[in-house]
Structure formats: structure tokens, C-alpha cells
């Protein structure tokens, strides 16, 4: 879907992004993680040409982005930023309709799409006619996400989308983003400095430091085989086991044919959820839904 090859951005004689190469397959959720100044936002912005690259190539679906007209390129890519940037003089519905309107969709189609998106990001349909300043920060970013998805782009770029929100809202929106990703199958590039968020949401993590790509791997590999001291430091030794439990799924550890009593767990639940349920129910085995089996405490540690 996206191939980034040797991409470099030089500012004031110094490389901000230095020969970064990785690719993301269609439907994947890729998180770019690093501290501020690591070059992750700049990398993201070179994809939709908000920032010009100094060297390298970026291809989306095989097409070199530098050969495309920037406006039509951006209309094909969803873009969500930390500061949200809703248009204060347009209603929620008008904000969501931005790109469809630019693409010249007819009114009925736009209206139907806006309703669909308001439902998808779980806003109230009553909010459609309101101006952004009447919404909470979390609601505003839901509108931001809906606006980015409006023209049904295959690719979604998210630049610290939940960075400005309080922790509770952030968690709720992260859960819903996972759900939206699952339901829509979009390819998502997500910039964050929060490794836990990345571990939870992404199936590929790109760790950047000082403009360089340090490690590009699935979450489990980041935890189990950090590429160097920087990544090891980022992962942190503390609670590593819990982080591993949080990204492993119950479905992978289920024992078919084993019976257990009680409310079944979803097979998509994490091992951390399973452990927590066992502690709460004071049991060492839990049934797993749709698997005809159960999971044992010893399977969690195995």
C-alpha cells in the first residue's frame, strides 16, 4: 500500500528525517513511535506532501506521490491532526462534508455519508447542526476522524490524534479507533509518542529516533527483541510481562474441548483481560466464546 524508500528531509543543513525506509501493507495499522523531534510527524507529512522531501521516494498503491497533484492526492488520504483543526465557521455536518464537497458529490449522497459517519464515530445525530466550539475536545476529535474518513480514503494519516485529550477520553477514542480500523479495513499510519497506545492498536510499529528508523516490527517483536538500547529503554523493563499479556490474544492459547463454567471470554480479548477475569472470578479456567474450549491460568504464562 505505502512504500517509503530512503526518505530524507533536510532542514537548515541537518537531516530531520534520515533515509527512512519501510512499507505498510493494505489494511495494516502502523504506529510511528518516538520522542518529539524524532522525525515521525515529518515522515507522515511527507506522505501527503504537507512537507516536501529532500530525497527518497514514497509510493502509494504503486504511484509515486511526487508525480501526483498535491490537492487530489490529499483528497484521497484521510488526515487527522492533534490540534484537530475543525473549521469553526462550519457546522459539524459541514466539517465532515469537506472532502466530499470538494469532490463534487451531490447533496443527498453527502447527507447520507455524513449520517453514516456520525454513527460510525458514535456522535449524536443532534450534533450535526452544531458549531465545533459547542463540543467537548473528545467530540471534536470524533468529528476530526469522521471528516478524515468522509470520502472513504484507503489511507488514513493520524498525527498524534489523541495527544491533546484527557486520559479517559483518549482511552475511549483509542478503543473506538481499533473498532473502526477493524470494521473499515483502512490502512492507518498513526504517529504517537505513547508506546503503550502503539502496542495496543498497531500491527506494525516503527520506532524512530533522531530522524532515523531504529526498528520496524510487529509489537510482540518490539517487546521481545528490542533492536538496541534505545528501544529497550523505551519499552522499559518494568511490567514487560504485563505489556506482553496486553498484546497476546486469548484465541491463540485456547484449549479446544476443555470445559469451564461461567460467562465466556471473547477470543479477541487479550491475555491481560483473561488474567484479570480469573482474578476477579477466583478461578483458574475460563470458557472462550465460539471456540468450544477454555483457557487455563497456566496457558497464560506459557
Amino acid at each position, binding site marked *: 500500500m505505502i512504500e517509503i524508500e530512503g526518505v530524507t528531509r533536510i532542514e537548515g543543513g541537518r537531516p530531520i528525517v534520515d533515509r527512512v525506509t519501510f512499507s505498510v501493507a493494505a489494511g495494516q495499522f502502523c504506529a510511528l513511535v518516538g520522542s518529539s523531534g524524532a522525525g515521525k510527524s515529518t515522515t507522515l507529512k511527507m506522505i501527503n506532501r504537507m512537507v516536501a522531501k529532500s530525497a527518497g521516494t514514497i509510493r502509494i498503491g504503486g504511484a509515486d506521490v511526487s508525480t501526483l497533484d498535491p*490537492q487530489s492526492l*490529499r483528497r484521497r488520504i484521510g*488526515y487527522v491532526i492533534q490540534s484537530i*483543526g475543525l473549521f*469553526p*465557521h462550519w457546522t459539524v455536518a459541514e466539517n465532515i462534508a*469537506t472532502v466530499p464537497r470538494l469532490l463534487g458529490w451531490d447533496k443527498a449522497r453527502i447527507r447520507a455519508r455524513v449520517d453514516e459517519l456520525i454513527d460510525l464515530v458514535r456522535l449524536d445525530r443532534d450534533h450535526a447542526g452544531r458549531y465545533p*466550539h459547542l463540543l467537548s475536545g473528545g467530540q471534536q476529535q470524533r468529528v*476530526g476522524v469522521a*471528516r478524515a474518513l468522509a470520502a472513504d480514503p484507503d489511507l488514513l494519516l493520524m498525527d498524534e490524534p489523541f495527544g491533546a485529550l484527557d486520559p479517559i477520553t483518549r482511552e475511549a477514542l483509542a478503543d473506538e479507533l481499533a473498532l473502526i480500523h477493524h470494521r473499515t479495513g483502512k490502512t492507518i499510519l498513526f504517529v504517537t509518542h505513547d508506546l503503550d497506545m502503539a502496542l495496543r492498536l498497531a500491527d506494525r510499529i516503527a520506532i524512530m529516533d533522531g530522524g532515523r528508523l531504529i526498528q520496524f516490527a510487529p509489537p510482540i517483536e518490539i517487546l521481545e527483541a528490542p533492536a538496541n538500547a534505545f528501544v529497550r529503554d523505551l519499552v522499559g523493563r518494568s511490567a514487560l510481562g504485563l505489556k506482553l499479556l496486553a498484546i497476546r490474544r486469548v484465541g491463540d492459547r485456547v484449549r479446544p474441548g476443555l470445559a469451564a463454567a461461567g460467562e465466556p471470554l471473547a477470543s479477541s480479548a487479550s491475555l491481560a483481560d483473561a488474567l484479570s477475569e480469573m482474578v476477579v472470578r477466583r478461578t483458574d479456567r475460563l470458557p472462550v466464546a465460539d471456540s468450544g474450549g477454555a483457557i487455563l491460568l497456566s496457558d497464560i504464562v506459557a
Partner: protein
Amino acid sequence: MMSLIAVAAAFFALLFGMPAFAPLVARAFPDVVPPIYGFASFPAMLLSHAEIVAVAALAAVASALASGVFVTREAGRQFRPILGAVATIGQTFPPVAVLAIAVPALGYGEGPTFVALALSGFLPIVANVIAGIETVPQAVREAALGMGLSPLQVLVQVELPLAAPVMLAGIRTAVAIMIGTATIGSTVGAVTLGTPIIDGLVGDKLPYVIEGASVVALFAILVDMALDRIERRLGARTSRPMPARRP
């Protein structure tokens, strides 16, 4: 709304009903004959006055908008300090001095008045055009570009509507000043509501000064109130906190 209607009623009553005040003025100033200024009718002077102000305001708005937009673009950013300096110098030049300089070049009549007004209106408008565009949050601009709006679409659909309340506040200030200042145009032969004021001053006839001044004052207040209403409506529609009101 009520106050706007009251001022409008007072203004039109004075404008068309001026002759009705004749007995009153005659009793207070028996030496002044005729008691009401009679070389031109007040409606006719108002029309000419309003026309000069309107044309000057249009010119000031058009040039301020064009130059304000230009210096807030990437290409024109370097000219911003120069524009600021030119506009400030223009403002420190009193309109009377502009008149004095413009008369030899443009002759007597409306020409020099028009130039003096347009120059004096340019600064408050251009300052507010720039301020208005600069109040547009960077995030909104980034989102607009990121969604795929062209630079022109960002200007027309996002920046100008968001800057409109602030820009209109500048236009309102400028127009109020211009309506007052236009009266001095009568010293160089333009027909304005300043004509009875100047004639009254020259001929030592106080009632003419009062008659002209009260119509001009009410006209300025009326236009200011009307623009204020438009400005608020615009502010409410764009649903942003209103810029601080002038005292």
C-alpha cells in the same frame, strides 16, 4: 434593534423635516436669515456626501483587502513591514494636509476629497484585514490544506470568512471616521454635509453649523450602528468569540 430604529427615525426626521425647525431657529437666532441653510437641500447634500464616502470606502476596502491578503501569503510576507510603515505614514498625514496637497494636482471639487478619505480609511482597514487573517488558527489552515483545499480555496472558504468580523470592525471604524472627515471636503468645493458647516463658520452663522453637524453626526451614528449589526450577525454565524468592541 430598537435603538437603530430610533436613530434612523431621528435622522430622517431631521433630514427631511429641517424646514419645520425654522420658527424655532428664527426665535433663537433672529439675525440669521434664512434660519435654515438654503443654498442646497439637506437630502441633496447627504446624497453627495454619501456618494463621496461610499466611493472612497470602496476604494479603501478593495486596496486594503488586496494588499492585506498579499502580505499574508508566502510570496508577499516580506512586504508586510513595508505595508505597515506606509499605512502608518498615511495615517499620520492629516486629511486636511492631503487635501492641500491634492488640490493642485486634482483641482477643486470631489477629487481631492476622495483621495484624502481613501487614504485615511486605508490604514484601519488594512490593519484589521491583516489582524483578521492572522487570527485564523494555524491548525485550521493546516487541516484545510491537508484535506486538499487549494490555497485559493483556503483563502476564500476559510481565511476570509473567519477574518470577516475583524475586517468588518476595521471597515466600520474607517467609515465612521470618513463620514466625519468628508465635511472638510467642502473647503475645496465638494458638496457635502460640511457645506453648511463651512458656510456657517465663514459667515458667522451658528445655526448652519449646528444644522450641518447634527445631520452628519446622526448619519455617522446610523451607519456605524448598521455596520455593527452586520458585524455581530457575521460574528454569530461564524460562531467565534467576537473581537473586543470599540468603546
